[in-house]
């Protein structure tokens, strides 16, 4: 049970420790946000539209500020003692306001747009770099893992072939040894049989030769004029 717990725990830990991207890719997030916007209010919430909205808002604010200043000036002028040429002053003030506010608004809008595009490009560049690094690392590891797997399979196959060869060689060796032992035994049996036969023949031949020699000795002694005591003893023994 401990071992089972161990493998489940190990699997869970491995699963949790797997390196995964911490954030979704920007395009996925953008698509999701767009779809959510469409679902929420049915309007397109693309960045360009948002920028346009901001520009319009800032323009409205600038116009309102200009109107407020102009109204303040007008009220001040009307409440102040009358001077010579109100129309000319009003015209000069309008021109002055237009000249001072419009470039500032334009510059502000351009700066905002520039900052926004810069941050977007920077985020895109970072995401792209991260993706490419990740892809490169993934490809390397995948190649290494595949190479290792192929190498393992090849090594396994070669080892199996080697084991099979050793086994076949061992069987052949055993068969050869068994055949050699059988042949040695057969030869030994034949040799012992031949040896026994030869011994028997030799014994028979020796006995015949002994008998013949004994007869020759008897004949020779019989033909001898002086019988030796040995011959008499032989005769009495024979009788």
């Amino acid at each position, binding site marked *: 049970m401990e*071992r*089972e*717990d161990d*493998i*489940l725990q*190990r*699997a*869970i830990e*491995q*699963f*949790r420790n*797997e*390196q*995964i*991207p*911490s*954030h*979704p*890719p920007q395009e*996925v*997030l953008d*698509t*999701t*946000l767009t*779809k*959510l*916007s469409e*679902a*929420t209010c049915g309007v397109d*919430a693309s960045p360009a539209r948002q920028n346009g909205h901001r520009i319009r808002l800032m323009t409205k604010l600038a116009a309102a500020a200009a109107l407020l200043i102009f109204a303040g000036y007008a009220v001040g002028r009307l409440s102040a003692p009358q001077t010579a040429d109100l129309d000319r002053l009003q015209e000069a003030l309008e021109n002055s306001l237009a000249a001072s506010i419009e470039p500032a608004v334009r510059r502000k809008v351009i700066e905002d747009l520039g900052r926004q595009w810069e941050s977007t490009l920077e985020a895109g560049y970072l995401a792209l770099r991260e993706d490419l690094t*990740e892809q490169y*690392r*993934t490809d*390397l*590891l*995948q190649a*290494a*893992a*595949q*190479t*290792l*797997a192929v190498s393992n399979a090849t090594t*396994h196959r070669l*080892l*199996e072939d080697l*084991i099979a060869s050793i086994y076949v060689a061992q069987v052949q060796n055993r068969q050869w040894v068994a055949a050699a032992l059988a042949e040695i035994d057969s030869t030994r049996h034949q040799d012992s049989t031949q040896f026994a036969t030869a011994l028997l023949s030799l014994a028979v031949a020796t006995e015949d030769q002994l008998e013949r020699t004994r007869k020759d000795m008897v004949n020779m002694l019989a033909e001898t004029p002086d019988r030796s005591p040995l011959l008499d003893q032989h005769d009495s023994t024979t009788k």
Partner: protein
Amino acid sequence: MQVHNWQRIAEEHASAVWQTAYRLLRNHADAADCFQEAFLAAFELSQRQSVRNVRALLLHLATTRAIDQLRRRMRQSRHEANDDDVEAVSARPGPDVVVQNLELAERLRAAIAQLPPQEAKVFCLRYFNDLSYRQIAGELTITSGAVGVLLHRAKGKLRHLLEPVEAEETRLPYGT
């Protein structure tokens, strides 16, 4: 009906939802689909009923869709040739360790796909999203006791599914 700022919610919970989907699927395109579906489903759900815990709801929806996708993938892989779409990520350990770890994680992934959906959801929410029993119970509209029972069953089945391969690993090589 509650009014949610879904732009803010999406940006706030994007990482958790993405990690949930990607961890289970290990595939960029599938995780992206799962990510979008989870947010849109949460939005549609919020239009019909009040949502108490948006994060838990998003994790629940992402887990459900990821498990569904995982089960579809496993069913397909039984019929099709296995072309081993291995997406290794971290290059820190050696290839052999990576292969072993990937195999272990893949086996757990396959085992999760074989669990009943409710048990798989409870297991993933508990161990991969760190939701409490109460949060899981709230999301799945079951009791905390039922969460414990489902979790116990899921762990038992996962052990059973993982155990034979482990036993095979410990055998002597080449059948000697």
